């Protein structure tokens, strides 16, 4: 036993020595490493999978375009299982062993909040494609996100429902996870502020598939509309069971709905559901190209978070390309602070998810698109931006 232990420890130390390389230089023949952090196993594994595939597409594209000074990039995917205690070793490995220059991730807000200080301390640009918690960008200079915050999305939608669609009563059914609860609470506050009435707030647990009890109660409260800010596996169940129970209300959702799987899972029931997502430029060729590439490579369609992951990866890779320089001995020198500054200056970047601009603290400045599903396709209906307290439609 003791022998085994000492062998293990000495192996690890040996490994530690072997890996002690400089952190700002990529040697010739090596690749520029970036990381992806997200759940690859467990209940939310599919979200991590879709996003990591998007980052891989971005890296391939970057390499095909010549990389940075001829250096290719590589993405290292690390599984967090959606848990803080698994994400900590993952980021420690990315930062300490692989010395990555950027991280796309993490997926869940609770995990992103926990790993952000480490990314900040190691001067790794971290762009989260899906953590919507309002506090995240304040965690540091190196922390960015290219997804709308809960607050923004929910505020715009609250105003939209009350003012544009003239909905008076809403019921909310959400899953107890950080994404859904954030949206539900912010939406409720905003909708009530606009004079609307929230007649029922029902919750369910992560992993639940039977929502008939909640929906029966909601049916009893008889709302005009129901807001489901959840992920698609649950939304599909909610739509189907609502129909079974004969609920006639209109259905609204958030960007979690953008996963094309909903069209398959809910079929025609997805038609007419209205949801929010960062607005795309109506003529975005970039998005079409990306979606075609993604479909060809992986045999499935990307969701909205994957668009964000793809954009985030390209933004950081382009920053590395723009700021790095050839050093002695054919090495590539990358200045982490310069990469960060370059990313921070991103303005009106034409990404697959839309125009991307970061605020001073690294949050996304976004126009919000109102979307719907129609005949097994997503369609953008309108586009809004928030001007102070006012909702302004962009034509």
């Amino acid at each position, binding site marked *: *036993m003791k022998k085994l*232990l000492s062998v*293990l420890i000495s192996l*690890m*130390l040996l*490994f*530690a020595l072997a*890996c*002690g390389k400089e952190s700002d230089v990529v040697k010739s023949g090596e690749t520029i490493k970036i990381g992806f952090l997200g759940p*690859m*196993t467990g209940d939310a594994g599919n979200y991590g999978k879709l996003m990591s595939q998007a980052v891989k597409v971005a890296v391939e594209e970057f390499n095909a375009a010549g990389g940075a000074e001829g250096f290719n990039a590589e*993405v*290292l*995917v*690390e*599984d967090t299982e*959606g*848990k*803080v*205690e698994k994400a*900590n*070793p*993952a980021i*420690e*490995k990315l*930062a*300490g*062993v*692989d010395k990555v220059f950027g991280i796309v991730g993490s997926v869940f*807000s*609770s*995990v992103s*909040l*926990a790993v952000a*200080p*480490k990314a900040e*301390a190691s001067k790794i640009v971290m762009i989260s494609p899906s953590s919507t*918690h309002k*506090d995240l960008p304040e965690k540091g200079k190196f922390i960015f996100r290219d997804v709308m915050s809960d607050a923004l999305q929910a505020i715009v939608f609250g105003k939209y429902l009350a003012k544009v669609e003239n909905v008076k009563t809403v019921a909310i059914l959400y899953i*107890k*996870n*950080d994404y859904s*609860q*954030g949206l539900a609470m912010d939406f409720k506050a905003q909708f009530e502020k606009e004079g609307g009435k929230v007649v029922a707030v029902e*919750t369910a*647990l*992560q992993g639940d598939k039977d929502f008939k009890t909640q929906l029966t109660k909601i049916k009893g409260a008889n709302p005009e509309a129901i807001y489901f800010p959840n992920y698609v596996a649950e939304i599909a169940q909610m739509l189907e069971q609502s129909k079974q129970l004969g609920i006639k209300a209109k259905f609204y959702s958030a960007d979690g709905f953008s996963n094309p799987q909903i069209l398959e899972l809910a079929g025609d029931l997805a038609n007419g559901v209205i949801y929010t997502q960062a607005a795309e430029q109506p003529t975005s060729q970039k998005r079409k190209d990306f979606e075609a590439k993604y479909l060809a490579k992986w045999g499935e369609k990307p969701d909205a978070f994957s668009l964000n992951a793809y954009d985030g990866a390209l933004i950081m890779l382009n920053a590395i390309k723009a700021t790095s320089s050839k050093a002695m001995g054919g090495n590539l020198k990358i200045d982490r602070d310069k990469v960060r500054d370059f990313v921070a200056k991103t303005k009106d970047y034409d990404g697959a998810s839309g125009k991307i601009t970061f605020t001073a603290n690294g949050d996304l400045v976004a126009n919000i698109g109102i979307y719907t599903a129609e005949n097994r396709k997503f369609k953008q209906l309108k586009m809004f931006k928030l001007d102070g307290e006012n909702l302004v439609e962009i034509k």
Partner: protein
Amino acid sequence: MLNFILLIFIYIGIYAISALGLNLIVGYTGLLSLCQAAFLGIGAYSAAVLMTAFHFGFWEAMLISGIITALCGMLIGIPTLRLKGDYLAIATLGFGEIVRNIIVNWDSVTKGPMGINGIPGPNLFGFMFSSMDKISWVILIWVIVGISYYFVRRIVRSRVGRALEAIREDEIAASAMGINTAKYKIGAFTTGAFLAGIAGSLFASYNQSVAPLTFDFMMSIMILCMVVLGGLGNNYATVAGAIIIVITSEIPRLFGISHIIPPQLNQVIFGLILVLMMIYRPQGIIGRVKLNYAKILKKEILHLEK
């Protein structure tokens, strides 16, 4: 890389403390408990709430959350008076799920699914432990592992420990010998939970955040595996078990192949180890330390012969 290894040792330490607690319940007293993660969760959340909402210092918070967890352990210990074997396991499993369920739903205190962030580190005579400074954390945690180890050893090598082992071997015989089995069984649960509570508060303070997803059934299983894998009823083996389990689960990352092999494979390997271990060495790698009566007897005889 060094940081990564230090981090692994921090985790090993935290798990080892709670595994030592579980060893007292499962290994020494023979009560199959599947809710050690829940105890860890109670400890972590109590510490988190005390430190963020009530601005307690780490040491007070650690002690209080240890006591709160111990009380919860007592609460779950009471049903053990009636339940045996699998039924007890199921009851503790149920208790674990209840704790997780309440943590997720009690938004006003636990912040629900968001978890609690910004938990400060300990302050020792003006020295602040920061999560960035892993060396001092490793020292702190392993000192506490040492204290817990000594604490558990003192218990099991005393009258109390012999009573616990008697209960494990044959409860009816033990009570016939005049052992108050109820008292000792509840005591085992209380102490085991106390240690998990301490581990939980370290967990919260080191990670600076707690979230409800962490303390699930799988975590209970992992801690149980540490106890079983090392050898039931052997504290030294329990610590070794913690080392083995944590390192195994990090092996792909240690060897830098975590991004090459599919993440599920890692879990499959964990499952395989569990099955193979149970088939080929159910008594654990090290096994239980048994008093060698033959040896003692021989010594006595030699002594008499002289």
